[in-house]
């Protein structure tokens, strides 16, 4: 590669007095002073959370209000810091969703252990656990930060469902071609 020699000119008298530079600098700071503040005043203003953000893991319901988790415990097994603990339970025979067979009796996520890796969301066959946009948590005790099923559903809310997998299964079963 060719060497390019940068010419170093001696400073002119004006430059050596340093004054034109100071005036130029003052101009720059004044220009910046007139710009609006870029500060996000946090507790009052919240940042826009980008799509796909991995915040606090939550449990969701489908648009018909059915809890999606079937307590297969895959998330519990995959969870690297062992933050999830599921107590599986059954579904009442009389219920419309009796054919789903299982639902969690209790679902606990210890937020002090969770590392927000998103493996639970990735592994879930029912798309029941989602890391959503909550990024700030606090509590006054360790117990308070072990989120129970009720709290997780409150945080999760309802997400749209493209499949309604269990409705299809039920229909197929009624038509006689269950697998």
């Amino acid at each position, binding site marked *: 590669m060719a060497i390019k020699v940068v010419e170093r000119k001696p400073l002119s008298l004006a430059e050596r007095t340093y004054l034109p530079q*100071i005036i130029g600098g*003052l101009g*720059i*700071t004044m220009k*910046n*002073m007139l*710009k609006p*503040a870029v*500060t996000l*005043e946090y507790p009052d203003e919240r940042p826009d959370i980008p799509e796909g953000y991995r915040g606090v893991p939550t449990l969701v319901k489908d648009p018909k209000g059915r809890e999606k988790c079937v307590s297969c415990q895959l998330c519990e097994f995959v969870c690297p810091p062992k933050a999830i603990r599921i107590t599986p339970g059954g579904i009442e025979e009389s219920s419309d969703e009796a054919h789903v067979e299982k639902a969690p009796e209790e679902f606990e996520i210890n937020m002090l252990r969770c590392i927000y890796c998103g493996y639970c969301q990735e592994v879930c066959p029912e798309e029941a656990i989602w890391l959503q946009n909550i990024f700030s948590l606090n509590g006054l005790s360790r117990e308070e930060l072990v989120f129970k099923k009720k709290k997780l559903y409150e945080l999760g809310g309802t997400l749209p469902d493209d499949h309604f997998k269990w409705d299809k299964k039920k229909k197929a079963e009624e038509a006689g071609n269950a697998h």
Partner: protein
Amino acid sequence: MDLIQFIWLVTKAVLMISVVMGCSAYAVLMERKVAAAIQWRPGPNRTQIPIFGGLPVIGPILTRLGIFQPAADGLKFLFKEDPLPKHVNQFYYVLAPLVAFIPAMTTMTVMPFGSYVNEAGEVAPLVLANLDIGILFILAVSSLGVYGIVLGGWASNSKFPFLGGIRASAQMISYELAMGMSLLPVFMWFGGSLNLFDIVQGQADLLLGWTIFYQPLSALIFLVALFAETNRLPFDMPESETDLVAGFNTEYGAFKFGLFFVGEYAHIIIGSGVFTLLFLGGWTLPGITLPGGAFWAVVSVLIFFVKVLALVFFFMWIRWTLPRFRYDQVMKLGWQRLLPLAIANLVFYAIVIALIEQF
């Protein structure tokens, strides 16, 4: 002196002190706001006082402007634990902040800040003590402030404050000379009077109004020396956080630090006042003569105040524009550039004034 006169004098003094102290406190707020604006931040905007902060429209506006912040800052300094380190020289350690603070407060007694027309029909200054050696008094007393810094640096018995104190003394000596020299042409120009009031009135009679138009070099040298004397960036050698932790006030906390801090800002305000009086025409405006009466006396005070405020803003503007000089650069600038320049300036104006008086 009869009692009424005495009470009137004390009232005036207390009023002056509270104004200067208030200005120092709000100069800190202004500094923070200017810094924030230059760095695209909003600055302090949360502090509230229960009753005033809750007023319907004004309350939130005042809060956003940070008007209550100085009260919070002051109270914080007051109520913090006041530690006295084991290794310091206790007497001088406690004395130092006072020595830094008192000269700054003393100089304001001779500073005129407005004018009125008295019963005899003469224009008279609004001032606590109209000394004939006004500027000499200010220069003499304000340079005592450096003893506070040196004393604090030494009494702290710790490396960084010590270096800060040494630097402060060297810097003060270097720039005091250039400062004094740069002022001499101004006094020669106005017939040798050292009275600040005479100089302001002298400027009002000039064609262009302000001395700075006639003696720009004197003004420049004085301004640079003023920055050095008040320990402001780019000359804040005694404090320079990057190399000396916090310089002379490393070992200080709570109210003692607060005194240093307020003293520094009081110095800036007094310095700006002196510059305004000598070079920016004080409370006069070019080509305008204020009529008599109490109202116009207040206007003259306001004119002076606005000029001082603009200059204080300039101090802060410079602070957030220029990086700190290296110590050897400060010394070189002081001794090898400013001092010869000030002497040349003095000789030049001596010749010019002699020529003007000849013809």
